């Protein structure tokens, strides 16, 4: 057939949507740099004891009253605080808390939100009504008061803190996923898939989920940054991770009284938070542009 000959003539490698998106992401230098930075930070956080042993030679909670308010230098690379704890060591261990809580929160809220949004969008009807009214309720709770209450009820450690933040965060994900599912399920291939005898579970997991995944990945990348901010704010208010365990947020709280003694104590945790959140946002935007070049903002 004539048309067939033309088509096979063009020898292109098989290009899936994922491959193409990945190529576009790789071409985005800022986005890739931000992504790599997050990976490096995560690696440092995971290997925190290794870093403190090899690089800083301090323990995060080791007090040394002879070396308080040290300036950045060879002894303390980023200085020390009011009771002589090494700032860099504490920042590295703080990354564990900040990034750990952020990743765990995103994982939890994405899992719950996707499940709820998928069920609501796919089945519709009364199930949709019940689930989405519940989501409306969750989203209308003033989060900060809920966090305060929960922090008083449950002594916050990184895991409970993640659960507390995720208990509100999943609502937005559910709404997002439901919206996507509503639009994807009207497309013809869903009817075609039903016509070959696919079950509801198969429709949702094998056919709808991969089509919803791009928005989920974008939401998750942007979410990491937001949650780092929320977590830092909670720590700052004394509702999150409790000293002496270092987190970027409670290092800020601690240092506010010494702002004029040593600006570094405020500066370094602040910079850490700022850079990480910025990287997360840049990476999230890059991922969004990679998945849908039409959305690209100039």
């Amino acid at each position, binding site marked *: 057939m004539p048309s067939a000959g033309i088509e096979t003539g063009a020898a*292109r490698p098989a290009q*899936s949507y994922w491959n193409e998106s990945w190529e576009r992401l790789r071409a985005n230098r800022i986005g890739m740099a931000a992504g790599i930075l997050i990976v490096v930070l995560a690696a440092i956080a995971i290997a925190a004891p290794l870093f403190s042993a090899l690089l800083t030679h301090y323990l995060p909670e080791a007090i040394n009253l002879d070396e308080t308010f040290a300036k950045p230098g060879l002894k303390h690379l980023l200085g020390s605080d009011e009771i002589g704890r090494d700032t860099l060591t504490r920042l590295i261990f703080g990354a564990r808390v900040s990034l750990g809580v952020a990743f765990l929160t995103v994982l939890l809220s994405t899992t719950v939100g996707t499940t709820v949004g998928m069920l609501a969008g796919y089945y519709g009807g009364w199930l949709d009504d019940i689930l989405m009214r519940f989501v409306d309720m969750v989203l209308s709770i003033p989060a900060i008061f809920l966090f305060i209450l929960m922090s008083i009820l449950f002594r916050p450690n990184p895991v409970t803190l993640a659960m507390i933040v995720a208990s509100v965060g999943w609502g937005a994900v559910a709404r997002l996923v439901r919206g996507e599912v509503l639009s994807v399920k009207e497309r013809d291939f869903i*009817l075609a898939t039903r016509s070959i*005898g696919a079950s509801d579970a198969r429709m949702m997991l094998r056919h709808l989920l991969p089509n919803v995944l791009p928005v989920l990945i974008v939401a998750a990348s942007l979410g990491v940054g937001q949650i780092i901010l929320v977590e830092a704010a909670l720590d700052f208010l004394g509702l999150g991770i409790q000293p002496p365990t270092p987190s970027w947020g409670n290092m800020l709280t601690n240092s506010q009284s010494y702002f004029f003694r040593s600006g570094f104590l405020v500066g370094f945790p602040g910079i850490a938070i700022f850079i990480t959140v910025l990287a997360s946002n840049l990476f999230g935007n890059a991922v969004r542009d990679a998945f849908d070049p039409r959305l690209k903002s100039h």
Partner: protein
Amino acid sequence: MTQALLEVQDLHTVFDTKEGTVKAVDGVSYELYPGETLGIVGESGCGKSVSALSIMRLQRPGRIVSGKVMFKGQDLTKLTEAEMREIRGKEIAMIFQDPMTSLNPVYDVGWQVGEPTRLHNGWDAKKALASAISMLGRVGIPAAASRAEDYPHQFSGGMRQRVMIAMGLTTTPQVLIADEPTTALDVTIQAQILDLLRHVNREFGTATILITHNLGVVAGMCQRVLVMYAGRVVESGPTADVFAHPKHPYTWSLLRSIPRLDAEKHEPLWPIEGIPPSLVDLPAGCSFHPRCAFRIDRCTRDEPALLQVGETQLAACWVTQAGGELKGA
């Protein structure tokens, strides 16, 4: 005559809307015999797609309110959803109007064509892919083995429709429902796809229901034809007879509204006056009477049944049932 493979009996499918209950399929009956190609024609919105979707119980959000769909001695409308899934894609396959959107964009074509065999025959990925590649070759996709790794957006419309047909055939179903399979394609590709469907019908012995609004397609493809209007069958019979001597004024008007190669040079085309009635509020009597050139008083009062008119045809028309002739004005 041989035993019918699929028998639709007095099927009623409705949609509940704000304006009222839409009777999309309003008492439709027909049989499909093994190996034949049955055409269902009618204007947009006459219920031809919904009647086919109802066979597969895919008419959502519509509801089948009454009627039977007999297939292999069981009534499909009574099956559980799980039993119905065993029919879909295994015994009865369906291909759709728009091949551009009927394939999942995130999977390669080989995976998708193999999906019915993985679902119904329990084949592993390797075996399903092998059969998918062989089927892609049989429906005329060149270099099927490498094309199977391509994604839907890398295929043209005609090629995608071939992929859809291949997907429908992997499980060698007994019935293939083709819902306007060529409407979204351009004319030369249409001819290729129709050729392929004819070939499939011969080679696999798959009985085919071909839904279309294109009378030319029916003339070239179908042994028998069903003409639908406002959710009902108004005429049925062997294609040649229906086209040569239509026994329902709607069929007659439809045939007069399309150009013919053998027409006199200046013979005008006659559009059908008026618009199809709202399915929420059908006119009393025969639904076609407001647009009918032959109507008599009775047409506005009583609804005609689908009865034998002439040797081979059935028609739902008071005029022809009483022996009246349909002659052009």
